[in-house]
């Protein structure tokens, strides 16, 4: 025993050690991850975001350096607090509070003291900050806007939220991401690819050089510069015209499907969402539930299209062969159907055939046309579905599939829909039950961009390109099949001419005769849509929407446009004028109808928008109470 005790002890402890080592090193994997978290820091190198140019090569968005004043608390040396506060223009209390916060976060890691100083502020600070040990200035890159317009088109940059971080492994908490508009849809093009560096840390979290000489490191790839289809001058002009109004304008180049302008009102300056005031401004925009400036009405607002929808009904009727252009229908101040029900119309000559029917926007004419379409089929279900099928070919009733990060399908009712609401087959329904479809009221809903696209399809006499906003990426044109392949409607080309002629007559002698633009032949269609809202649970009717669609020149369309002005009384009043001005601006580059421009700039609908919130009964579609000078014309639809 005496001779072997130490042998035994030595061997036993050796076995114990080996067992423990085996457990630590081989069996328990958790230490590997722990050591990586511990000792390797991953640093990302963020590339410059791509620039955005308009269709004419004008720079809209670039990047600007911004400067954060950072502090590493443990490196602080005593300093002249008052002087520093003067330099940074904050109060001593604020400074102390921020330094305390930084200290609590980490004494060794940098914290932001003052975020996002501008170039000007930085130049002044750069010299002085050297005196203050523990402080330093860190450069970041922010968006720099050369335009105050098109915030809805451009979108904005924001910090990624947790959901995105969880779903997409590219993004880390604190990374920036594009949201909405171009920045949102073309995020991957614009952002580039961030580079990564693995850095060996020591136990104080200090960097001590690249990990494994940087074999895992990657270089950042710069974001791509892109050219968008927007004409920034037209965009700017559209926003100017829409001031003090609500609604949307979408202008499309029919030959290409390129979106020339996409205005929503109210809107905001894109620069508001950059820099020191970003979160304050964003909150303000976000919480404005009355004006809803973050809501892109051009893409999202689903309005009843009103009379412009008649053009498409005329096309369907011709295609279905249920109406000839010469067929006349009479109108006795409206259309009577069922048991004493009437769809009203305004005063005009009667009876009318197709061209004047469109020009005068006769409700009775289109009620007849619509019934003939539906009643061509043995059942109303079959009729409605055939009718809806044509509409779908115009990109209606479904998402357009444009390269805009948001959109709505609108609504085109089908037999399924009517069967449901009328409880078929318990109850039957007939074409008259859906008659308001004849004039673009009732169940039909369209977004301004759908309406603009429909107009472009008419301008092209039967086809369109899916509207899109990207024109070129680093000089090479957009190649996406979705945007470079013509989409044909179900209407044969020859049927378009009478409708186009009707729309031309709208401008020459019809409901838009007051909108003459010298030297430009326009085809257009006014619309005046009844609409309802709910305030505090009460459904109430509001003043009619003002709607106008147009393309010009008639024979060689350069622009197709749809304008919605909420509660703008009637089609010609706001939307017609705005569309006319936009067309003149785009085609001529200057405005000759200064009177029209002045009228639009002078008139505001703000009072109109406040009516439902006043809590008191109010009049709609009635100028008298507010003392308007303009007399309501006879022909308004």
């Amino acid at each position, binding site marked *: *025993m*005496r*001779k072997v*005790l*130490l*042998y035994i*002890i*030595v*061997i036993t*402890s*050796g076995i*114990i*050690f*080996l067992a*423990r*080592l*085996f457990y*630590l*090193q*081989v069996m*328990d994997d*958790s*230490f*590997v991850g*722990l*050591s*990586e978290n*511990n*000792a*390797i820091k991953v640093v990302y190198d963020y590339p410059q975001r791509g620039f955005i140019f308009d269709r004419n090569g004008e720079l809209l968005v670039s990047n600007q350096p911004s400067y954060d004043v950072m502090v590493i608390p443990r490196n602080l040396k005593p300093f002249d607090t008052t002087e520093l506060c003067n330099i940074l223009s904050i109060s001593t209390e604020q400074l102390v509070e921020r330094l305390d916060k930084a200290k609590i976060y980490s004494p060794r890691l940098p914290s932001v003291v003052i975020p996002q100083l501008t170039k000007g502020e930085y130049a002044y600070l750069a010299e002085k900050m050297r005196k203050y040990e523990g402080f330093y200035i860190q450069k970041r890159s922010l968006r720099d806007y050369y335009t105050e317009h098109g915030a809805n088109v451009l979108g904005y940059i924001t910090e990624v939220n947790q959901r995105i971080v969880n779903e997409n492994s590219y993004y880390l908490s604190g990374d920036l991401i594009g949201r909405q508009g171009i920045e949102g849809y073309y995020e991957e093009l614009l952002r580039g690819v961030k580079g990564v560096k693995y850095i*060996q*840390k*020591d*136990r104080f979290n200090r960097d*001590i*050089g690249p*990990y*494994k000489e940087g074999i895992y490191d990657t270089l950042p790839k710069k974001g791509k510069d892109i050219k968008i289809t927007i004409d920034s001058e037209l965009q700017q002009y559209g926003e100017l015209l829409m001031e003090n109004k609500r609604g949307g304008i979408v202008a499309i180049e029919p030959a290409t499907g390129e979106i020339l302008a996409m205005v929503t009102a109210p809107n905001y300056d894109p620069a508001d969402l950059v820099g020191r005031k970003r979160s304050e401004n964003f909150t303000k925009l976000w919480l404005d539930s009355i004006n809803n400036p973050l809501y892109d009405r051009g893409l999202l607002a689903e309005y009843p299209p009103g009379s412009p929808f008649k053009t498409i009904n005329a096309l369907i009727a011709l295609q279905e062969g249920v109406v000839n252009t010469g067929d006349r229908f009479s109108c006795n101040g409206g259309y009577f159907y069922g048991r004493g029900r009437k769809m009203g119309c305004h005063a005009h000559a009667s009876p009318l055939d197709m061209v004047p029917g469109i020009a005068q926007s006769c409700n009775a004419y289109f009620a007849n046309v619509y019934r003939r379409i539906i009643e061509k089929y043995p059942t109303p279900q079959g009729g409605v579905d055939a009718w809806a099928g044509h509409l779908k070919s115009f990109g209606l009733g479904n998402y357009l599939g444009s390269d805009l990060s948001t959109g709505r399908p609108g609504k085109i009712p089908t037999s399924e829909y009517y069967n449901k609401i009328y409880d078929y087959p318990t109850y039957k329904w007939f074409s008259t039950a859906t008659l308001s479809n004849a004039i673009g009221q009732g169940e039909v809903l369209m977004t301004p961009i759908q309406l603009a696209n429909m107009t472009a399809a008419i301008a092209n006499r039967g086809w369109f390109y899916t509207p899109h906003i990207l024109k070129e990426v680093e000089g090479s044109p957009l190649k996406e099949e979705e945007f470079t392949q013509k989409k044909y409607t179900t209407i044969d080309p020859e049927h378009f001419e009478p409708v186009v002629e009707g729309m031309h007559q709208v401008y020459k002698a019809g409901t838009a005769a007051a909108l003459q633009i010298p030297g430009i032949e326009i085809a257009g269609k006014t619309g005046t849509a009844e609409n309802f809202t709910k305030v505090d649970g009460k459904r109430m009717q509001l003043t009619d929407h003002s709607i106008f669609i147009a393309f010009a020149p008639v024979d060689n369309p350069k622009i197709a446009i749809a304008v919605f002005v909420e509660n703008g009384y009637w089609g010609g009043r706001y939307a017609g004028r705005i569309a006319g001005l936009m067309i003149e601006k785009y085609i001529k580059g200057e405005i000759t109808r200064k009177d029209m421009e002045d009228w639009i700039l002078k008139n505001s609908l703000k009072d109109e928008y406040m009516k439902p919130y006043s809590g008191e009964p109010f009049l709609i579609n009635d100028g008298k109470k507010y003392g308007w000078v303009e007399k309501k014309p006879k022909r308004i639809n």
Partner: protein
Amino acid sequence: MPKTISQFDWLTILIYFLLVTIGWVNIYSASLDDTASSAFEFGQIYGRQLLWILLSVLLIVILLSLEAKFYERFASVIYIISLISILGLFFFGKTINGATSWYAFGSFSLQPAEFAKVATALALSKFISDIQTNIRDLSDQFKAFVIIALPALIILPQPDAGSAMVYAAFFFPLYREGLSGVYLIAGTIGVLVFVLTLVFSPIWVSIGATAVVIFLYFFRKRKKPGIIVYLSILIMAVALSFSVDYIFQNIFEQRHRDRFNIVLGKEVDNRGIGYNTNQSEIAIGSGSWFGKGWTEGTQTKGNFVPEQHTDYIFSTVGEEWGFVGSSVVIFLFIFLMLRIIHMAERQKSQFNRVYGYSVAGILFVHFFVNIGMVIGIFPTVGIPLPFFSYGGSGLWGFTILLFIFIKLDSDRMSFW
């Protein structure tokens, strides 16, 4: 002379050089920073260690050239000089890391406690091998105890509890030479009661001890001691348990309590007191089978493990060489210790044997406490890993310790 050389135990010398080389390779990695370019930069830690290693070779030549008899003859003198040198620390000592254990000579420091172990081993061997000494005799046991305890008690308040603790290693030669097994049993029971008390509580330990004693009393058939013996052992165990609890809770400082609690898995504060152990375990654990490769250890490069080139050098081995590498080092140590015990057993002179056992015992305590601490199964006690840890005094101390024995061993035939 050639005859003498062939009598040296070359196997032991080979293992020594293997350990020192592997040690230096790891010190190099642990202390590497990107500014240095050459292994021979003596401003760097690994450069200095290399210098110490080269000087050890000179030292070895001197140690082996001296007459074997010299060590026995001058054992008492060496012991006394050694005592004086550690006493002198109270007056001329230099404080590093809170312990006044160094004499400073320019940029180099010497830690005399590292040499005092050798002196004590020599003195103890000399005392026990004296024809007059009978280790079974209580008064001689006391004298031996004094020889051992004197340097330990001087070192303890410096404070250097780790170095003092090493003197427990002298139990092994004493036991080998005939010290009563009662001490071993008492010691084992004491340690068992101590640890169990900390893990459980005095009440449970008392209940357990009572059960064991009853069991032994009824089932031991031959050479059965009287019931009094059983009772007194039981009473002492229970008393010890309660006093351990009292001492632990009331006399120990918090840092001592923490060190035990970490090992017992009771308390994990990985940012504070548990930091070293935790980081060391992470370093070793992340090594997996084959390690991250030399100088590729991220924990090592990041200096996450404090004192990694000294007391925690084994964590570098674990991280960069993995389980395979650490096993090799463990095997080398085990083999060295077994070899020394084997060599001690073949000695004809009692002086040589006692000294050999002392060497094995001292190496074992260092090995056990150091690696035990680094892999998290022993409380944190600051003592170096022999031949591995950075430090000239340590390296020289162990070199002298070992090579005196190699010299003695080579001379064993010509002893008479």
